[in-house]
């Protein structure tokens, strides 16, 4: 088992680039002043990012995935995350097989 120098260089380049994006946010607000408006925008960020992440995959998934998403949302209103994920995956598998 060995480490190729070119592979190591590529892994380090990826690591440094990723570290920059992760630590950079800590300094962002020392440079940019936080107004109540930008504060409110940041409060909306979690839902915004989560929606942006799932919307394309749901759009690609078709009717079966959309129905599974509704089942998942209903489950999420009353159950913790782990059962929600199990219900979501099971309903996605069933609906993908049942719906054309």
């Amino acid at each position, binding site marked *: 088992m060995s480490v190729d120098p070119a592979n190591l260089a590529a892994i380090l380049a990826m690591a440094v680039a990723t570290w920059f*994006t992760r630590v950079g946010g800590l300094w962002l607000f020392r440079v940019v002043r936080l107004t109540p408006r930008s504060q409110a925008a940041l409060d909306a960020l979690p839902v915004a990012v989560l929606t942006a992440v799932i919307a394309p995959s749901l759009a690609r998934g078709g009717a079966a995935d959309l129905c599974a998403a509704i089942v998942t949302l209903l489950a999420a209103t009353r159950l913790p995350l782990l059962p929600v994920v199990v219900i*979501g995956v099971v309903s996605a598998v069933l609906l993908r097989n049942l719906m054309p």
Partner: protein
Amino acid sequence: MAEPDKPAIAGSSGWAEFRAGAVAVLPAAIAVIPFALLLGALAARKGLSPLEVGLMSGLVFAGSSQLVAVDIWQEPAPWLLLGLTALTINLRHLMMSASLSRHLGGFGGFQRIFGMLCLADEIWALAERRAAQGRLHPAYYAGLAFLLYANWLIWTVAGAIVGPAVQDPAAWGFDFAFTAIFLGLIVAFWRGRGTALVMARLAVPSPRLARRRCWAVPGT
């Protein structure tokens, strides 16, 4: 709006916080296993050794950028292209750490930097949820990060060792696990009509909604 002094959760010790964090991230850790195995197997097919896969997972720890990187991996590895690819795909972490930095009041200087180096989408979302419920304890964050990190490292290396035996997770419906996790977290973040407006703005880009200048102000 300054960050108010939020009361700590009653009777919470460091160990209890750590355990609570690990339990919270468990669904994401389980859901990621098929993809970690797949990544390791794909990397092995491109000629990366299990040790190199472990180094990449341990140092980069960013699933989607690793999958794309392995996809464009060549012999010899194009380090500049791979570095820029990781930068582009992970640029969203800049906004995540900026947003999270407002809730790191209880963290020491080293804890802040080390904590952000372990950032991942799921860790960030769960840490934001914790901060919205009360106070984000460093031990809770450590519980989130430790379990997901160790889990990712172990299963990507396992994928590189097992190699060809790994099947496509989408064939088993595991790809929906991430959608389910993120849907569950959206429900946790739900704060009424304003939230719906943010989602509508992002999921359905309509000119009428785009003209509303205040779409990003939920429940404030």
